[in-house]
């Protein structure tokens, strides 16, 4: 039984240093890719509960705050969480699109924050096969046309292959690690797997820092342009 709470500080506490860190994250994504804007963004991490979903929802909130049309898609089909972050009922979503061939437009929820949401819906069998399907790829391509930004949440890299599969159809990957929690070896192994699979890692987020104790380290540390082709 997992109880967890997500805080969307950009919405709930817009003047906090934490929300400012997410605005900085958005700025850094934009500035580091001026010539080729990153519009479909995957948030993932090495291990569970490292902060990827929190990063995804807050980044989406920054886009909404800026008046951008943004959708968050829950591709964590094994342990979906986005419904919890937005307090939505997970009774319709990707399952209905994949299994019942419903029009995904009818499955999108419109949150009062301005963020559109596509949940997982009921549990799908063989998520890794579903995620590789042309149907999913085509949907992402359509969403790319329909939205300014598409933020994608996925399972952790070291748990299952899903995150690696999705990394091939997004524009860029944000790699999240939790301060004082994510093990160094795991963080490195996850990153290695992504780079070996040719993921375009556009940056990393160090989450879970208590800004009130950090003495000048501002909440979420971000570094951009990780050399994803380093091993080539």
């Amino acid at each position: 039984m997992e109880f967890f709470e997500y805080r969307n500080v950009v919405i709930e506490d817009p003047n906090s240093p934490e929300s400012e860190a997410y605005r900085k994250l958005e700025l850094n994504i934009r500035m580091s890719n001026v010539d080729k804007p990153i519009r479909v963004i995957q948030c993932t991490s090495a291990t569970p509960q490292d902060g990827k979903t929190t990063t995804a929802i807050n980044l989406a909130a920054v886009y909404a705050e800026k008046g951008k049309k943004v959708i968050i898609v829950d591709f964590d089909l094994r342990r979906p969480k986005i419904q919890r972050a937005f307090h939505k009922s997970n009774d319709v979503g990707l399952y209905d699109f994949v299994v019942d061939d419903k029009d995904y437009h009818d499955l999108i929820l419109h949150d009062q924050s301005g963020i559109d949401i596509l949940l997982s819906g009921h549990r799908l069998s063989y998520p890794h096969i579903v995620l590789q399907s042309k149907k999913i790829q085509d949907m992402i391509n359509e969403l790319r046309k329909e939205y300014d930004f598409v933020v994608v949440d996925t399972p952790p890299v070291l748990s299952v292959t899903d995150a690696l599969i999705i990394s091939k159809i997004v524009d860029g990957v944000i790699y999240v690690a939790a301060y004082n929690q994510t093990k160094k070896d795991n963080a490195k192994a996850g990153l290695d797997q992504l780079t070996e699979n040719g993921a375009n890692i556009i940056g990393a987020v160090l989450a879970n820092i208590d800004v009130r104790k950090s003495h000048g380290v501002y909440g979420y540390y971000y570094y951009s342009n990780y050399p994803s082709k380093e091993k080539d």
Partner: protein
Amino acid sequence: MIDIHTHILPCIDDGSPDIETSIELIKTEIEQGVTDIFVTPHYYHLRGFISPVEENKKLFRTLKEEVKKQGLEVNLYLGTEIYYNRKTLRNLKNNIVKPLGNSKHVLIEFSLSKEIEDIPEAINNLTAKGYVPVIAHPERYPYIKKIEPYVYMKKMGAKIQINASALLGKYGGKIKKFVLKLIEKNLVDFVASDMHNFRMDGLKDAYCVVEKVFSKEKAEQLFNNRTIFN
């Protein structure tokens, strides 16, 4: 007292087998001091209890007529004890199962042996649709042994219903002690009988336990909690 969880609707589940037994059970409830009874037959697919609301309503009407004929002073309301699974929201929408009476409270149960369904997820899904989930007898779930999950369930918007039997030590001394701890920490909302034909209710004795250990006020709060009508 208000009993929010009973299996006295005849011929539906593992509760009352016929209308005569139902009437006897209702008489027992009245003797215990119950004035309002929620009739909550199981909807539990794996156990073969799949009688939809429309069918239950017919039997409920028959039961109410018999209660009236016999001049029994008790208010009856129809509900369902729903075994939660992924179809529950759809079943609520399609009126296959129903909330308690005319309220938004939904009585849900989970596996008594191992953790199969995700309880926090169930609470999230139901509250997001405007329902108030009432978790039926969580003290019987062996996978919830600590106080913390109760704190979170409550925080997420669920209410907690424990069985009178737990307070009477019928599930063992350990569970009785644990339930008293839950009450002490204000984590219990209702005590109900979960009355089947074979499990007599014991509400009166359980009330006395709470009154003795805590106070009459506390006992009233748990056995006569009128928020169930909201």
